[in-house]
């Protein structure tokens, strides 16, 4: 190919290079603050602009995913409905958990947002970095573990939903084999698998849980294939920790059962759907906005469940016996008034070792670090090294 006229292009490139060189200073990047803020840090006082509070949400997936992001967006809409003209909300979807996230966060700050929600773990480092620079902006990070003076974390006790689903699954299954399509083998997911099994075993001590990992949060074709593999091995009730409705749809096609996850997925599998373990981010978002509006917002970690209205099992179908439905109501009431604990000993892990003694109740620290399968779950957790 004949090279185009080079002189013109060389001049432009040289100009570009000069531009960058002229602003050059060799310093290393400031290291991100990694210490968790002291709990006694004062409330973050944002410069109060006249006008509504500008809130922004960064989503990792599309709002139409009918799963994780859909649930967050539902929460956002509830905020709009509740606070009306006192707030304006905006969102950016499909923000990847990579170097791009930082740019999006900064752009949101630049646009004047003073309360920013990052709805996935992978935004942790970018949010931390931007938070140390934009000290008057409040940052909220979902499912993370690093905080700062103006960055706090929030999460939902999805394991409570998983437990309740397990209670139903244990009653419905005929083959006594349950299947879970797992996303990524992090503690949250392992905890959900264990809680599901605990719930099932509480009504049916014979069940076993089989797990297939797709190594992604969201990959409908793969999720469907994983579900098929589980069904082929005899599982007749499926649970998932992934974000699409493919697992439920596969169960529907095969005439077996499944649950919705994150959001109500009953329309994707009308015959197969037993219930959906959903997350209501509304209550927490409304609380956070209220605090931002009245100035009481301060850093910390929040982990809400059924008690605060963040977790629920909805859409229970007619396949679920009246007995089971009553038991679910009982569990919910017990979680609400604190009289019932899911992770209460004696609990034994796969190898037979007792991880919780009789009568002992797990605290949040224990729950955060679960990286073992309990008895009843088949296979090994795919950790390597």
């Amino acid at each position: 190919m004949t090279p185009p006229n080079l002189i013109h292009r060389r001049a432009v490139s040289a100009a570009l290079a000069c531009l960058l060189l002229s602003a050059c200073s060799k310093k290393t990047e400031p290291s991100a603050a990694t210490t968790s803020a002291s709990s006694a840090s004062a409330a973050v006082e944002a410069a109060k602009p006249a006008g509504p509070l500008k809130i922004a949400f960064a989503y990792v997936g599309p709002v139409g995913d009918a799963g994780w992001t859909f649930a967050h967006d539902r929460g956002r809409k509830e905020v709009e409905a509740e606070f009306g003209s006192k707030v304006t909300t905006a969102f950016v979807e499909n923000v990847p958990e990579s170097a791009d996230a930082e740019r999006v966060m900064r752009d949101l700050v630049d646009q004047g947002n003073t309360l920013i929600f990052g709805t996935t773990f992978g935004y942790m480092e970018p949010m931390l970095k931007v938070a140390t620079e934009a000290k008057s902006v409040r940052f909220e990070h979902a499912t993370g573990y690093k905080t700062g003076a103006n960055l706090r974390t929030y999460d939902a006790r999805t394991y409570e939903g998983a437990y309740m689903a397990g209670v139903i699954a244990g009653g419905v299954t005929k083959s006594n084999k349950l299947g879970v399509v797992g996303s990524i083998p992090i503690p949250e997911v392992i905890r959900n698998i264990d809680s599901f099994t605990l719930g099932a075993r509480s009504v049916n001590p014979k069940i076993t849980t089989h797990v297939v990992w797709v190594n992604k949060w969201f990959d409908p074709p793969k999720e469907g294939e994983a579900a098929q593999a589980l069904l082929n091995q005899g599982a007749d009730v499926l649970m998932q920790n992934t974000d699409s409705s493919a697992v439920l749809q596969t169960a529907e096609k095969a005439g077996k059962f499944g649950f919705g996850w994150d959001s109500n997925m009953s329309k994707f599998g009308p015959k197969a759907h037993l219930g959906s373990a959903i997350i209501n981010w509304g209550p927490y978002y409304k609380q956070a906005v209220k605090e931002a509006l009245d100035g009481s917002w301060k850093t910390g970690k929040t982990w809400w469940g059924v008690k605060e209205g963040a977790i629920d099992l909805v859409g229970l179908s007619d396949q679920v016996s009246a007995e089971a439905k009553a038991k679910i109501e009982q569990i919910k009431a017990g979680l609400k008034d604190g009289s019932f604990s899911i992770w209460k000993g004696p609990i034994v892990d796969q190898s037979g070792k007792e991880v919780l003694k009789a009568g002992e109740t797990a605290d949040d620290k224990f729950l955060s670090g679960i990286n073992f399968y309990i008895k009843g779950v088949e296979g090994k957790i795919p950790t390597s090294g």
Partner: protein
Amino acid sequence: MNLNELALLFAASINSGTPIALAALGLLINERSGVLNLGAEGLMLVAAVTGFATAVHTHSDFLALLAGVAAGAVLALFFALLVIYLNTNQYATGLALSLFGAGFSAFVGVPYASESLGERTQFTLPGLSKLPVLGPALFSFHPLVYLTVLLSLAFSWFLFRARSGLVLRAIGESPESAHALGYPVRRIRVSAVMAGGALCGLAGAYVSVVYTPLWIEGMIAGKGWIALALTAFATWRPARVLLGAYLFGGVTMLQLHLQGQGVNLPIQLLTALPYLATILVLVLISRNSAWIRSNMPAALGKPFHPGA
């Protein structure tokens, strides 16, 4: 693993391999005429979203699949005009199609991401599907699966027994000779590319309407590229394409099955298996350069200039 589980695994492999087989058969027709279409992935994605959208609006699977076929054919026509009449570089144009198709399908599909298609019919051959073992293994498939097998047989016959198939192959080997004999090389190539595109479109629509009745960006997840590899390592023969596709589907389902059984190999290794297997087979069949030369259409990827 008992016999019943084996039968189910077999059936799952066939299901998983069908879209790849369909796309590969389409690409085979393309490549036999001498045109390499690297845009298969983009074609399949656009067809998938078109098919899904049609299914949502018309509630008819048949129309949806037809829409996918049409989308594939139209895009392929566009590709063909560029590559055959304007003689643009086949590799680059194909890549552009892939990238454009990915973006366009994502763009158009935004409003469909939370739609569902309602109740799906379970296809079974009456009586036969109730047979033990053989029933689930062989007789419980969606009609398209059987169609794929028939297509493969039809293509084998067409390519190697029919006169028009011979002409097609001749154009793929030496378009100059075919041109000298008076055949409208470029017109035949365009038809071949469109037919190939139609099949890729069918494959794409199958994925979004039948296999995983959902739409999500990028849901073809590399099946188009696998199909491209498949035509090469099946040495451009329809029957081998079918086998290769089912093999690929088999390895995919097997690794999921092994996980469910609790086999303790790193999941990443298991997930990478199908791709590693593809490389291995590619190497094995390409080894003998004489054999590859005698099997690959000689004019594949080269532009044709009539009168040049």
